[in-house]
């Protein structure tokens, strides 16, 4: 193992705040999930949870839009990391969905939970893949 170069470059290419946006989306669905879970086994009021879900979806759309506009980006690295992280977090989200369905969550509540889990399962891989790819050579 060689040590990292001590005289490495300290300046980075400016990048849009994709990681911040996807992390903010994650925070929205985590808060929404806590809200829904705090009412269990009663049916939670869906107004605030839906608003948080919409906010998370808008943040994800903004992140993907900014991501798609980056010139000279390491897309190969991004896709490689994203697909494996997506697999891992889809399994985790599936487990949470299974637990909610097993606990008799039904109807609109289950739809909101499912959509939140979709945001969860895509936001984390996007954050990871972007953080890795932004430092990779575009190739």
């Amino acid at each position, binding site marked *: *193992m*060689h*040590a*990292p*170069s*001590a005289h*490495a*470059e*300290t300046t*980075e290419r400016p990048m849009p705040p994709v*990681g911040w946006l*996807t*992390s903010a989306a*994650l*925070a929205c669905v*985590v*808060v929404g*999930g*806590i809200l829904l*879970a*705090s009412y*269990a*086994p*009663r049916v939670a009021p869906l107004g605030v949870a839906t608003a948080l879900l919409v906010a998370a979806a808008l943040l994800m759309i903004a992140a993907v839009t900014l991501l798609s506009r980056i010139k000279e980006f*390491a897309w*190969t*690295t991004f896709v*490689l*990391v994203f697909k*494996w992280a997506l697999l*891992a977090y889809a*399994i*985790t989200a599936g*487990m*949470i969905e*299974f*637990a909610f369905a*097993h*606990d008799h969550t039904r109807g609109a509540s289950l739809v909101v939970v499912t959509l939140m889990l979709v945001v969860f399962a895509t*936001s*984390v891989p996007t*954050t*990871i893949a*972007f*953080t*890795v790819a932004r*430092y*990779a*050579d575009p*190739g």
Partner: protein
Amino acid sequence: MNDEVTNSVATEPSTSAPPPSASRPKIQVVPVRGLPIVALLVVFVALSIGFNWQWGLMFNHVVGGGLWTGIDLFVGLVIGPILGRLSIPARAEFSARFMPKMVIIMPTVVMMTLATGFQVARFSGNLLASSPNHAWLIVSFCVVGVMAVIALGVLEPANIAVLFEMNKPVPNGARIGRLMQRFIYTAGITGVMQVATLIIMTRLASR
């Protein structure tokens, strides 16, 4: 995943680096040998939830939670300060062996803890609004939420980015240092949250 990841990164040309060293071993970003164990644990958790297997639920929650809290505090309070005092080559060598293991261990113990924790709370009656423990449970949800956002949105991306950087022909030390600063900045928050978890969980279990 491992070979694909290491190969794809290692073959990328470096724009500002000297020629690559052929002798440097590649880092396994994800230790493939650990994946069957993870798969077994996922199945174990799913079966415990699916069949309302109370021992399985409690086992996964207590073992997963204990490891999660223990590892977080041990790494933050013991390993971290030691690592900070090592030479840069020693730090790099330790991180190259340590961080891939964390990539696989931490998500697994978190999954074990959280997926079964909700079921344990349901069976113990703590989920009911009338339970005297309900407020403590909600606080624990909030604590876990803060830790989840920090771990998934801040630390894990940095961990994997560092491993990819270390797999480059000549890693960028300044970049690795910047990414590793995230661990230092969040160590205090994570430590406080984990101590809060210990207090809440022991309180829930003793009432």
